[in-house]
């Protein structure tokens, strides 16, 4: 009996190694996720993109993901585990993986890395991100039109430039509709914590906000807004099922085309380190359908979207006036340049709050 069990075990192990060998011809592509694949926000969108990638190139590649990887001491190990498992192209999908990714990238020069939303690069490490502030601008227009109280509620994650530029774009847009628009900002200091996000939404509504927007990843705020009969914007993914009468639109992260393009480049041997920062025109993100608003507001939103896509409208058109009342130096000619937006560390005039750490 024992012998036959041993034989069985050996057989199974052998079977495993044989299937591993046939998979070795395929390019292995790895993903590191911040949240669970079911967070219905940030990580979920990366997972959808991975699935799109498999659908497109499934016969040439094999994908693996590690979920719930904290942005701490474990991240470096998780990334290296993927390298050691034979992955040749690795997507690390959160800002906090920047230093760990760079460390592993320097150690394995023959493996290629793609880091989302960071600013450090290496000959074998690219970065990619989206110009979400363009979507925020459209949301700002809608919010100002839809708000009866004139107070918007904004749930921030971390006061990093990506988030700060989103807040500024929102307010600049809203001010074109209602110059006296107010915004209340709460920093959740997390990307994903449904409990905290819900508490923040409640607090904002209690302070008079009737349109809730968020830069955190779960649908919790949408649910609270829905319960309280307010309006809200989704984040990262389609959240309409959490607020069928609540969601105005949502900025949808659509990483699929980028992932497919990068993997194709890797397969062709043309991959090289780049910094990709795509906007509405390059389909790095998309806007969910405009819902729960009258037709005239929808028209404003659609017109703005068309103008931004065509390059006719820039959310940070000069002059951009800071909180101190002075216009910000205009390095991009007619508008702020990319560097100023990528490093944005100030609030525009009209935000009655202080940027943390300023």
């Amino acid at each position: 009996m024992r012998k036959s069990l041993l034989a069985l075990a050996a057989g199974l192990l052998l079977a495993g190694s044989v299937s591993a060998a046939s998979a070795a011809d395929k390019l292995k592509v790895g993903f590191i996720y911040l949240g669970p694949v079911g967070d219905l926000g940030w990580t979920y969108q990366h997972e959808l993109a991975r699935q799109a990638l498999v659908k497109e190139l499934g016969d040439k590649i094999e994908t693996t993901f590690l979920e719930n990887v904290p942005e701490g001491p474990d991240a470096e190990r998780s990334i290296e585990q993927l390298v050691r498992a034979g992955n040749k192209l690795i997507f690390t999908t959160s800002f906090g993986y920047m230093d760990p990714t760079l460390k592993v990238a320097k150690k394995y020069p023959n493996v290629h890395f793609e880091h989302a939303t960071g600013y450090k690069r290496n000959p074998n490490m690219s970065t990619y991100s989206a110009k979400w502030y363009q979507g925020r601008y459209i949301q700002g227009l809608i919010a100002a039109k839809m708000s009866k109280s004139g107070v918007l509620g904004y749930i921030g994650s971390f006061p990093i430039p990506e988030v700060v530029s989103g807040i500024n774009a929102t307010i600049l847009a809203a001010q074109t509709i209602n110059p006296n628009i107010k915004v209340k900002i709460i920093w959740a200091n997390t990307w994903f914590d449904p409990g905290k996000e819900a508490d923040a939404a409640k607090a904002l509504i209690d302070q008079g906000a009737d349109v809730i927007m968020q830069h955190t990843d779960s649908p919790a705020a949408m649910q609270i807004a829905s319960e309280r009969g307010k309006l809200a914007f989704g984040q990262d993914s389609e959240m309409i099922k959490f607020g069928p009468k609540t969601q105005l639109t949502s900025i949808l992260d659509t990483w699929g085309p980028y992932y497919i393009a990068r993997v194709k480049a890797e397969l062709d041997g043309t991959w090289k380190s780049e910094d990709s920062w795509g906007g509405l025109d390059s389909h790095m993100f998309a806007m969910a359908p405009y819902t729960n608003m009258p037709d005239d507001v929808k028209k404003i939103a659609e017109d703005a979207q068309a103008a931004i896509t065509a390059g006719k409208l820039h959310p940070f058109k000069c002059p951009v006036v800071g909180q101190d009342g002075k216009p910000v130096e205009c390095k991009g000619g007619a508008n702020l340049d990319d560097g100023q937006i990528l490093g944005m560390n100030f609030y525009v005039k009209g935000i009655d709050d202080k940027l943390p750490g300023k």
Partner: protein
Amino acid sequence: MQLVLEKRAERSNTIALISPLIAIGLTIVTMVILFAILGKNPLLALHAYFIAPLTDSYSLQEIAVKATPLVMIAIGLSLCYLANAWNIGAEGQFLIGAVAGSWIAVKTQGTDAGVWALPAMLVLAAAAGALYALIPAICKVKFGASEILTSLMLVYVADLFLDYLVRGPWRDPHGFNFPTTAEFDPVATVPLLIEGGRLHLGSIIALLVVAGAAILLGRTIKGFEIRVVGAAPRAARFGGFNSNQLIILTFAVSGALAGLAGIIEVAGPVGHLQPGISPGYGFTAIIVAFLGRLNPLGILIAGLFLALTFIGGEQAQIAMKIPLDVTKVFQGILLFYVLACDSLILYRFKLVFPNRQVARGTH
């Protein structure tokens, strides 16, 4: 017929030795069933969890790296628990140690501080951890405040203090507002031991701590005092042992070890101070301390074993596409069985045939 638990007249030493093995055996059986239900090959899954991580130098190093803070903290906690002092706040002492040590690293950034930097950081971290642990200890001794509550609450204080520092005064000026300090200078980082891996000096320090604790408990009067105060408080009082003094001492030692573990983690694998430096090491170490039966060698083994389940779980996720949640279920089941089997040390199963037999006898 009924199955009942009956208290043993004496604790069974045989069971005490084999109960962890029974627990591991039962865990494996349960996991095999679970893997089969998930449609994964149980043998390959077990191989990925337990065998694969032990077969190459890289994974072995990672196990040691993961186990280092757990073992160091758990050793300190075991001294407290043996002396009946309930330090639940090792997580806070870990964070305060990390903060105190980082202070030197942050202040000497870019000044080419010299080789004294790291030793000074280690000493300062241990001292800060000890002082922080003394707060609940003194509240306990002087005012009778529950050290379980006070030490636990101080975790949140430490957490928020660290948060404040990295978002405010210590924030990396070139870090785009992200809450983190700049990377520490090389003189302020824990040296690596093996080229290409992450095994660091901290693991050696952890081994020294284990050896030190074994000597303290096995060969010194102080160790004897600690054990007597915990096991037989009345006898200890007759023996003239001062239990208050021991609470202060064990809290200070465990705080120092947690603080040391904190700075080693920050100046080692992480390389800078940021929120989330501890994925709950201070709490997981409580489990490690009890899994290791409050015995230094046992704690070393328990820490390594728990680390193995983390690394193995990750490899199973990669190799077998087994979800992370299964690893968590697996760790939960293991702890459940360990505790369940431990009850067999003091109790035993007995079949009882009540009423019917009794009834037959009397009539």
